[in-house]
């Protein structure tokens, strides 16, 4: 399969940031980077959420988000849940670029990539991310097995490791010119610098040997030096932060710049060894705040140091066939692997979340794609589950992560630690889903976390947000109330605070302190402060809820009172702006957005919100400018591309509009609004009927469908409510679905009464269990084998119980009204129905069914998210009975009907028998 002689050198510099690099390049202090800048293409590289390095470097190496590659944090539970361990190459569940190249006949060297322990047996050299780590006590320093491939080179490479005791002042003075004045007994900063210099040198020694002494086609070298220097010394970087001691500032103010200069020297040498015919790519997974956004203290949350990471890393590429001295906009770290594949002329996996950065090429070439590299047989050298035994306990790595503050100090074998790790990783998975706009998948994960950790403020807030995104307002309201009550319990009175402060003061004067008592008191104070802040956020959420319930006046009062309080955090201001937009008040929203852009000029989301406000004011030109800037900062915003398409459409620039909409659809094929607009443009303005037909056909056949949810579309629904809702296509099939006894018959009755045409044969007549009728169609039960009746359902409503949905053919468009009901109630109701028909036993409760049904619902939500031809509205049976009007509004919006939804006389709360009896 190997097609051509090509050399690609990928250098990863964790946390490298243009904000430091550009000034140093301008001063001539980074000559290697200057050369790459002059001879290549550079740009920002947008990161992913959450900004956890092992997860991000795996996304760089796979082109996939963490839900697909499986690395969710720094540590993970052992399979038997007996302990926690650092994440490893064994945790990766998809092929990395070196696996793909291996099976395509290319030779790779991979040095230090995080996480690459235990090493994979590729055709080339692999040195793991544990290889270069220093033990300050040389007596404790020993070889870590499975860290070098081929194993024969293990001892040789260990001889090339350098220990800080080999360093002299010649190594330290470039970082700290006045190092002689440091009292090394008290101040350990010099020791840290020595350790980081050696760790970088150790990676570099292995890499230089591999590049110079072995053949290679691809080499990936990862340095963590800049990230570690930034976490340890960014507080001393100019301009001086008032909290930093003057003497310490003078001593260490040049450390960050020195680290970048050293990194540049290492890059220069690797590029030299790679040769002029090699393509060199420099990337960082994120940046690091070096200005007024540096954090003075870190909050007590998971992986708090990652909050110091800026959301843009660096991307630079130079080599044969690459444009010179140009900039690229909108690159993401998901694009690196697809771009490397394109450099080797290999097809891209359609399951990859990134795309090749074709803009870098002087002459564009055709790029092919395949469904997934994971299905391609060959010698990929990916570690298998059987290799799990290779992974041994690694207390050294755990200690390193604890020392860096990424994880809390812990006993890796305690039950509490394992459980915490499990839920932390579930939380990360939820964030990953949300970052990928897959809210329907995030929801069951957040529900699970909430059930176990209702006191966790961070996950509860995320849960509520997710419910909002999925329009589950009733549930959101319930959780907000519970959350508010729990926060209020944590808030201390003024008296209580004064008392604790006095006790803490007294303890400080006593020697020795009573073990742990002071810590507990401090934590109580912190929790109270945090609860106070979170209560403000809850206030905002309640206002958002009122907006969704059309109670604008009440919502406005809350917003105004919040704004009067002042000193609001940026996320609160931004949400108030969004709510103003929802209420059709673009001027008020614009005032807030513009304030925020002053503080965060690189926030693509804010620029998009601003554009949306401008669009409401019909200022399409300015809106388009904002959107072009936004997509330049972060290309992966399908919403922004869709809005840009709408702006161009309004400006009658149809060709540009089509381009923007194509991009939006590539990123999120579920954007039906974008599809419709694009077809309209091709049909009516660009006279390209072939494309319009092809697009319609492709969409029906599900070509290029990618997993996603309809959350993005919801953002587009935020427009003035007076806007006419689009009517339903006659080709759509409306399906009422859910588990038996979840309220599907009730929904059928409502739609029947509202005048929707119903597909029913009326064979099953009303009975005591459904006194108002079933509205069923007999042939549906045989859908697995007979689908001939489906065309009859077009433009009609048909009831299909949820277990049969998977048999729906992909060539039709469906709008599903999905009924939810408490699963316990469903089971009880089914049992009751069986009992009345003489098929069940009295007073039995099959608990296993409850578990099976819950899993079925979770699986279905995931399935929905993967279907481009299915739109879903979730209606809760219980909410339908208690808050009917709002649920009907939601239904009306979803069905896009001009007709009112009639429910009077249909909804009869006495039907809600099982609950009422309780």
């Amino acid at each position, binding site marked *: 399969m190997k097609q051509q002689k090509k050399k690609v050198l990928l250098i990863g510099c964790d946390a490298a940031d243009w904000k430091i690099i550009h000034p140093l390049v301008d001063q001539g202090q980074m000559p290697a980077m200057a050369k790459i800048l002059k001879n290549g293409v550079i740009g920002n590289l947008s990161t992913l959420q959450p900004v956890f390095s092992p997860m991000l470097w795996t996304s760089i190496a796979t082109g996939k988000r963490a839900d697909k590659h499986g690395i969710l944090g720094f540590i993970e539970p052992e399979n038997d849940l007996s302990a926690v361990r650092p994440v490893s190459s064994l945790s990766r569940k998809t092929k990395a670029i070196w696996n793909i190249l291996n099976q395509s006949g290319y030779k790779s060297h991979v040095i230090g990539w995080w996480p690459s322990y235990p090493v994979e047996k590729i055709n080339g050299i692999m040195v793991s991310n544990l290889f270069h780590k220093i033990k300050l006590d040389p007596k404790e*320093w020993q070889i870590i097995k499975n860290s070098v491939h081929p194993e024969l080179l293990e*001892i*040789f490479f*260990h*001889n090339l490791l350098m220990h800080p005791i*080999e360093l002299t002042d010649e190594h330290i003075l*470039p970082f700290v010119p006045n190092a002689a004045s440091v009292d090394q007994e008290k101040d350990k900063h010099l020791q840290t610098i020595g350790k980081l210099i050696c760790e970088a040198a150790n990676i*570099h020694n292995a890499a230089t040997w591999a590049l110079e002494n072995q053949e290679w086609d691809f080499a990936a070298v990862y340095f963590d030096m800049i990230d570690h220097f930034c976490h340890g010394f960014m507080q001393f970087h100019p301009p001086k932060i008032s909290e930093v001691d003057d003497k310490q500032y003078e001593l260490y103010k040049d450390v960050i710049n020195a680290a970048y200069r050293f990194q540049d020297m290492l890059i220069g040498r690797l590029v030299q060894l790679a040769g002029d015919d090699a393509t060199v790519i420099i990337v960082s997974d994120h940046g690091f705040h070096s200005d007024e956004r540096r954090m003075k203290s870190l909050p007590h949350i998971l992986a708090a140091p990652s909050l110091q990471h800026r959301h843009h890393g660096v991307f630079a590429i130079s080599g044969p066939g690459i444009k010179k001295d140009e900039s690229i906009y909108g690159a993401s770290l998901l694009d690196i692997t697809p771009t490397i594949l394109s450099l080797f002329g290999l097809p891209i996996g359609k399951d990859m979340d990134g795309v090749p950065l074709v803009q870098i090429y002087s002459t564009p070439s055709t790029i092919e794609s395949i469904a997934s590299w994971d299905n391609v047989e060959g010698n990929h050298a990916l570690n298998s589950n059987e290799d799990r035994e290779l992974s041994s306990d690694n207390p050294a790595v755990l200690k390193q992560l604890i020392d860096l503050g990424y994880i809390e100090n812990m006993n890796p074998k305690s039950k509490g630690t394992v459980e915490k790790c499990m839920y932390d990783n579930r939380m990360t998975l939820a964030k990953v889903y949300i970052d990928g706009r897959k809210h329907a998948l995030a929801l069951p994960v957040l529900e699970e976390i909430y059930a176990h950790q209702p006191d966790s403020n961070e996950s509860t807030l995320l849960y509520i947000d997710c419910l909002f995104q999925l329009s589950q307002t009733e549930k959101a309201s319930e959780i907000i109330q519970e959350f508010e009550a729990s926060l209020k319990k944590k808030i201390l009175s003024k008296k209580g605070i004064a008392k604790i402060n006095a006790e803490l003061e007294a303890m400080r004067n006593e020697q020795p302190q009573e073990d742990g008592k002071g810590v507990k008191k401090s934590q109580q104070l912190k929790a109270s402060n945090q609860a106070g802040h979170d209560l403000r956020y809850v206030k905002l959420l309640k206002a958002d809820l009122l907006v969704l319930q059309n109670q604008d006046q009440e919502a406005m009062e809350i917003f105004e009172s919040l704004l009067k309080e002042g000193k609001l955090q940026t996320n609160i201001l931004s949400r108030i702006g969004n709510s103003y937009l929802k209420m059709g008040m673009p001027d008020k929203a614009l005032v807030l957005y513009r304030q925020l852009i002053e503080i965060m000029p690189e926030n693509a989301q804010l620029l998009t919100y601003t554009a949306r406000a401008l669009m409401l004011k019909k200022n399409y030109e300015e809106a388009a400018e904002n959107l072009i800037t936004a997509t330049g900062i972060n290309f992966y915003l399908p919403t922004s591309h869709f809005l840009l398409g709408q702006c161009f459409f309004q400006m009658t620039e149809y060709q540009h509009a089509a381009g923007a909409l194509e991009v939006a659809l590539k990123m999120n094929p579920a954007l039906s609004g974008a599809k419709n607009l694009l077809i309209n443009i091709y049909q009516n303005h660009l006279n390209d009927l072939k494309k319009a037909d092809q697009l319609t056909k492709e969409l029906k056949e599900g070509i290029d469908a990618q997993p996603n949810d309809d959350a993005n579309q919801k953002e587009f629904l935020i427009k003035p409510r007076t806007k006419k809702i689009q009517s339903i296509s006659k080709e759509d099939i409306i399906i009422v679905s859910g588990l038996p006894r979840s309220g599907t018959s009730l929904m059928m009755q409502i739609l029947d009464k509202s005048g929707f045409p119903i597909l029913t044969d009326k064979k099953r007549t009303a009975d005591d269990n459904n006194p108002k009728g079933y509205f069923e169609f007999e042939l549906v039960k045989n859908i697995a084998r007979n689908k001939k009746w489906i065309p009859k359902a077009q433009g009609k409503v048909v009831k299909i119980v949820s277990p049969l949905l998977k048999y729906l053919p992909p060539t039709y468009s469906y709008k599903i009204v999905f009924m939810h009901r408490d699963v316990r109630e469903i089971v009880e109701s089914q049992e009751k129905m069986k009992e009345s028909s003489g098929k069940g036993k009295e007073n039995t409760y099959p608990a296993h069914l409850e578990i099976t049904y819950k899993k079925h619902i979770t699986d279905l939500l995931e399935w929905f998210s993967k279907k481009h031809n299915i739109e879903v509205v979730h209606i809760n049976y219980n909410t339908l009975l208690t808050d009917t009007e709002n649920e009907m509004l939601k239904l009306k919006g979803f069905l896009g009907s001009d007709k009112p939804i009639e429910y009077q006389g249909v909804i009869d709360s006495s039907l809600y028998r099982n609950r009422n009896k309780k």
Partner: protein
Amino acid sequence: MSEDKHKVADILINELQQQQYEFTDGDGQALEINNKGSIGLLAVGYKGLVALRNSRARNNYKNPNNLVATPKKEKE
């Protein structure tokens, strides 16, 4: 395997130690190889490290830090 690994290491290290090293920096200026070492020498990579250690061995130089720790052999 362990014996083979040591043999390979001995051969390769020996080969590296036998070589004469001269390096230049990015501007083409000669890099000085002395007992104290330098950041520039570290940036050369494995050859820079070997050159530094060779120089120190030749001159019987002892770092004030009482340098050079050889990693312990793995436990078989």
